[in-house]
C-alpha cells in the first residue's frame, strides 16, 4: 500500500489520508478558470500538500459534495467530487 497515491474523490467516508499532490492537470474536464486558479483556490482554503484530511460527510445525490476535516478538526471545508479529483492523497490506515 505504501507510495500508492489515490484521488481524494475515491476515499470512503470516515477515512483519513495525507495530501501528497495537488495538480490541476488531473481534472477530467475543462473549467472556465484561468490556469492555476483552481489549484490556488484549494490552497487558499487550506487544502495543501502535507495536510491530513478526514472525509466526514457526503451530500445526498451522488455523494456530492464532500465535507472534509483538515488537520484533525482545525477546520472543515466542503468541495465537490469533481475538484477532489485533482487532489492525490496517501491513505492512512485506521487503527
Amino acid at each position: 500500500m505504501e507510495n500508492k497515491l489515490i484521488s481524494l474523490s475515491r476515499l470512503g467516508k470516515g477515512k483519513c489520508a495525507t495530501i501528497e499532490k495537488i495538480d490541476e492537470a488531473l481534472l477530467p474536464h475543462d473549467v472556465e478558470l484561468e490556469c492555476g486558479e483552481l489549484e490556488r483556490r484549494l490552497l487558499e482554503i487550506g487544502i495543501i500538500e502535507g495536510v491530513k484530511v478526514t472525509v466526514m460527510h457526503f451530500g445526498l445525490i451522488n455523494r456530492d459534495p464532500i465535507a472534509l476535516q483538515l488537520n484533525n478538526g482545525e477546520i472543515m471545508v466542503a468541495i465537490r467530487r469533481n475538484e477532489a479529483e485533482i487532489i492525490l492523497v496517501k491513505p492512512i490506515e485506521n487503527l
Partner: protein
Amino acid sequence: MDISINTDSVTEKQLRVALVGKPNCGKTALFNALTGSRQKVANYSGVTVEKKHGYFKTSQGTLVTLVDLPGTYSLRSRSPDEKVTRDVVFNQFNQEKPIDLIMAVVDATNLSGCLRLVLELKQTGIPVVIALNMIDLAKIRGFEYDLEELSRQLGCAIIPTCAIKKRGIHELANEIDHYHDSLVTPNQWREPDREMVREYHRQVHNIIRAVEKRKGMPSLWSAKLDKLFLHPILGLVILLAILFGMFQAVFTWATIPQGWLQGIFDSAQTYIAGLNPNSFVVSLLANGIIAGVGSVVVFLPQILTISLFIILLEDTGYMARAAFLMDKLMGGVGLHGRAFIPLLSSFACAIPGIMATRTIENRKDRLVTILISPLMTCSARLPVYTLLISAFIPAKTVWGFANLQGLVMFALFAAGIIFGLVMAFIFKTFFFKGDRQPLMLELPSYKAPNLYNVVMELIKPAKSFLRRAGTIILWVMIVIWFLSSFPLPPAHATEPAIDYSIAGIVGKFLEPLFKPIGFNWQIVVALIPGMAAREVAVSVLATIFALSGVSDDAVRESLSTVLQHAWALPTALSLITWYVFAPQCISTLAVAKRETNSWQWPVIMFIYQMILAYLMSWIVFSIAGHLFR
C-alpha cells in the same frame, strides 16, 4: 510626543483603520463591540459597494474611523466582495483618505487558516495590529500560544480579544495610539500565484510551530451536530423543517404584534378623521398619511421575524451547512451552492439578496442569481398576499391540521421558488452556457448566537424599512392622495369622488391593457405607485377605497371586507399571481443596475418578469373564470 501632527494641532488626531479578516472569524462582532451604535452604512459614490463605517475614540483622544470590510481569504480579488477589501486597502477610492492602519482579525482557534492573510497584509507596508479573537474559546479548547513570540515573528502588536464578551476591546482600541506614520513602509504586495500561496503556507506552518505551546481540541460539539445537520437525508429534513418554521413564525407569531400596530394606526386615523370631516389637511393626514404609511409599518414584525431567522442561521454557522446540502440540488438547474444564501435573504428583501450575491465568484453564476432573486417572495409582498388571502380564501382547516389560508400562502412562496429555478435553468441553458464553477465552502464550527450582536444586526433592516416608510412611501402616499382627490368632483356628482380625479382618469385609461387579466382601474392605479414599493399597493387601495367612499361604515370595516364586495374571485387570484412574478419594485431594478454596472440586466429582469406575470395572471384568470362562474 508626536511631532507629525503640528500642522493640525488644533483639531484632534484622526485615523482611518480597516478591519480585515477571513469570513467567520468574528469580525462583525468585533466591529459592533468597538463602535457600538456609532455606525453608518452608505455607498461609495459611483461604485457598487456598500461601506460600513463606525467611529470610536481611543483613551488618548484619537478619533478612529473603522471601516468594516467583507471577509476575504486573500488580498487578490476573485469575488466582488473581496475586490472591495483590496480596493479599500490600496485606496482605489480616490475621494477617500487612505487607510492608516490595518486591524487584522485572527481566529485564535484557527491560526493556520488566518495567518496567511496576515502575511499578505504585512506586504502592503501599512502597519498592522492583530486582534487575536475568540481567545476564550481557544482556551477552553486547550490552545496555548506564546504571544510574545508570535508578535515578534509577525512583527506586529497582538491583542487577545473576545468580541462577544467585549474582552480586550479597550486594549485593542488603545493599541491604535501607538500608530506613527514612520511605521509605514513601501507596498511590496504582489498577487500571489500558486507557488507563492504554498510559500506563505510554509511560513505560517513554521510560525505556528514556533509559537504553539499546546494544540487544542477540535470542536466536539460541531462534529456531533454535523452528524445530524449534514446527514444526507436527515440533514435535508431538518433544513426543510427550519424553513417551514421560519415561514410559520412569520405568519403566526408576527401577526400578533402586527395586530397591536394595526390597532394603534386605526384608532389614530379614526381620531384624526373625526376632528374635522371637511378639512383637506385632516383628510390628507388621516386618509393619506396615517392610513398609507400605517398599512406599511404594520409589517415591521414580519420583516423583523424573517431577518431574525436569517441572522441566527448566519451567526450559528448553519448557513454554510445549508449551502452544502443544497449545492447538488441547486446544481440541477445550474446554480451554485453559494446562491442559496442570497436567495434565502431575498425572502426578506431582494435588495440585500442581490447584494449578497457578491460572494459568488463567477460572473455568470452571479448574474443568474441576481436575475431570479426577485422571484423569491419578499416581505414587501406579504401585505398584498395577506390582504387578498384574508379577503378571498376561507379560513378553514384542511387535512385535519393545516389552515387553508396558510396553505395558499405556502403555495405562493413555492410558486416563486419553482419558477425561480425554472428561470435559472432557462438562463443557464440558453444565455449563460458554461461549466459549473467549483465549490469551496468553509464549514465554520457552530457557535451560540450572541444577543447583543443579534440585536445590533436586527436594528439595521428595521431602520432601513422604517426609513423607507418615512420617505419614499410617505411621499408616494401624499402624491396618491393628491392625485386621487383632485380635481374635485362636480357639484352634483353621482359617482364617488375618486372617479373624477387624475388617478381615476389614468387608471381608466390604462384599464383596457389589463382587462384580459381581470384588473379593474382601481388595481391599475394601485400598481403604478406599487412600483416604488410593493407594499404601497395596499395603502393605495386603502386610500382609493377610503376616498371612493363605498360607504363610511364599509371603510371603517377592514379593507379586506370592502374588497370582497368590490372584486370577483378570479380578479383577486389574478392579482395575487401578478404579485408573485411582476417586477413591481424600482429599488430592486436600481440595485441590479448598480450591482451589475449596466442597464442591460435590469432591463432583461424587467422584461422577463413582466411577460411571466402577464402570462401567468392571464392563465389563472382564465381558469378561475371558468371554474367559478
